[in-house]
């Protein structure tokens, strides 16, 4: 269950490169290539090692004019999707 207290990081087999504010991710174990839009790319950049998801939520709230409850819900949902698809993993909470 991904929560604001969760600590996430990119899985070891994921490499990524930011091109024009979008992230191109290579899942080496699956030979899959994924493109994240600007917001997704920014989320990835904000997921510094050891930083809980709360830090990502707070940073995005200052960068985007959006209802805070909507932002939290959408970001958590997206991060959950990234974990389920094997791009991110939870390393603590």
């Amino acid at each position, binding site marked *: 269950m991904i929560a604001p207290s969760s600590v996430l990081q990119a899985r070891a*087999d994921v*490499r990524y*490169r930011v*091109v*024009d504010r*979008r*992230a*191109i991710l*290579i899942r*080496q*174990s*699956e*030979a*899959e*290539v*994924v*493109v*994240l*839009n600007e917001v*997704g790319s920014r989320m990835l950049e904000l997921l510094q090692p050891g930083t809980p998801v709360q830090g990502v939520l707070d940073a995005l709230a200052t960068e985007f004019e959006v209802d805070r409850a909507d932002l939290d819900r959408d970001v958590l949902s997206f991060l959950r*999707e*990234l974990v389920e*698809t094997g791009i991110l993993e939870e390393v603590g909470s």
Partner: protein
Amino acid sequence: MTAVRPREQPPSAFGEAFLQDPELFPGRRSGETCGEREIAFELAGGAYVFSGLEPSQVDALDGRFGSRVVGPGGSRVETLVFCVEAREFRELERGRPYTFDLDYSRASVRLAGPGFMARLDWTPDLRGALWTAAPGTSFGGAFENYFRVLLAYRLLDLGGALVHSAGVRDEAGGGYLLFGPSGAGKSTFARLAREAGASVLHDDLNPLCRGKGSTALKALPLSGDIGLGPGAAPPEAPLRALCRLRKSETDSLRPLHLSEALASLLASCPFVGRDPYRADQLLQNLHSLVGGVPAYELSFARAGRSWTLLRAAEQA
């Protein structure tokens, strides 16, 4: 989030579909060479030297690639060719889908396919070894399979990339790279472009190479439905545009974000695109090669004017 996957390959242990005993795959370049002859030729990626050949093998390669005198030193990749007993390879079922196995590691890549096995090693420079059954009609096919992989990795080392694509050159000499998943219509588009007056470099594999200040598409004398015949001098063309293809009922063109183009190109790069140790380098190469090149998604109809549409966009 957009996901792009390279072509699927059937799961199996390395080599078991092609070799009687995959456990005996050579751990290094060793064995009995087929002969004493050598051939060298220059293609995208520099000079390629194949040693240990017997006369019929030299003739087969000379007819397709044309031999060149390659001087000592300089950028060259050397491959030793060995002969093994035919019984080391499995008999394959008729109608079996044509594939071969690749096994990746940090310092080498192993290949096993119909009637051949091979390895590429970085020690520290790239060099290869190819084992085939005693000289016969299977050598040409085995060689070409091996050579495609060798070419892909050689290009990688030189900052280039080998792309599963159609390469087309317009009347002014500008090059266009059309790519997409299997069935996207690369050969169909190449045929339509040729009917409209363009020339086709190749409808299956095209190298992207670093040039002086620009990226070049270079034709290869490899098997394909459309492209150069054996022995033809390979032309090249400065890259003008990239197009991701999709079949449609109508013709349309839309700009493609660079990130989408790179992701799709990466998925269109055979062999290296699935290499967990080198795909990242390939992505860097692709970014460097096509970063400043216009990219589009081209939806085209079978009997449409897609080539004209693409040219018009580039000339606008």
